């Protein structure tokens, strides 16, 4: 592995972009580096944020547990998207519906518990004569 096959700085000219796309085994149209914010990404390609769960389970991958092929560019957060960890598969219920239901329930319960702590109510008892 020579140094020109390693990731480098952000590509500025179209020739550098084409060379970087070839280096990463991607088509020039597919290659999209991270925006040049100075955060340290360099010319690493920005792949769609999808976890390895979403890849076809029936295809003959070179590495079946990672669902990854030899030489295919890996996502920057590949170690997060493995099948033991974060999963971005489509959910049955849309995300905004789920979060709305959850936060309404949680908010209501917290408000009720808070009110119960501020204004406790208990059965009236008579103090025993000393």
């Amino acid at each position, binding site marked *: 592995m020579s140094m020109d096959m390693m990731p480098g700085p952000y590509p500025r000219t179209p020739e550098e972009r084409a060379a970087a796309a070839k280096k990463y085994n991607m088509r020039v149209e597919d290659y999209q580096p991270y925006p040049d914010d100075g955060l*340290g990404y360099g010319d690493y390609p920005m792949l769609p944020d999808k976890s390895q769960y979403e890849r076809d389970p029936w295809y003959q991958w070179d590495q079946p547990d990672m669902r990854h092929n*030899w030489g*295919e560019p*890996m996502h920057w957060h590949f170690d997060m998207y493995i099948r033991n960890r974060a999963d971005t598969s489509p959910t049955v219920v*849309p*995300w905004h519906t789920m979060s709305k239901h959850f936060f309404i329930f949680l908010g209501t319960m917290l408000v009720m518990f808070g009110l119960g702590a501020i204004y406790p109510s208990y059965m009236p008892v008579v103090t025993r004569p000393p």
Partner: protein
Amino acid sequence: MASAPAPSAARLYRPNRFVSLPAELDPDTYDTSPEKRRAEAERLAIRSQLKRQYLLQLNNPSPPAVIEDPALIRWAYAKSQNVYPTFRPTPKTSFLGAAYALGPLLFWIAVLKAHRDYKEKRIQEG
């Protein structure tokens, strides 16, 4: 009753950073234009060349001890050794650096000081 057409199922679903759109709702699945086919064919050509290289090494009668994956090496290099050369101080990175480095420190200083002052006040008052 001239109302707007019903919103598409994809817009009702609203994929975000945590969930992606199912393939059935994505209009891209049903796109059979020649450009898409050419793109798929080019990707398949790249894929098959890589697979050929991999299988040549795998089925070698005297295989190497470890078949290195250049994508894995590039990924590891990019995340570890390529960050410092490509880092550049910008307003955003300086602000983030200050926030992540000094923020928790100042926060906990303030919390602990306030807590100790509160306890001290209670001790003084008995």
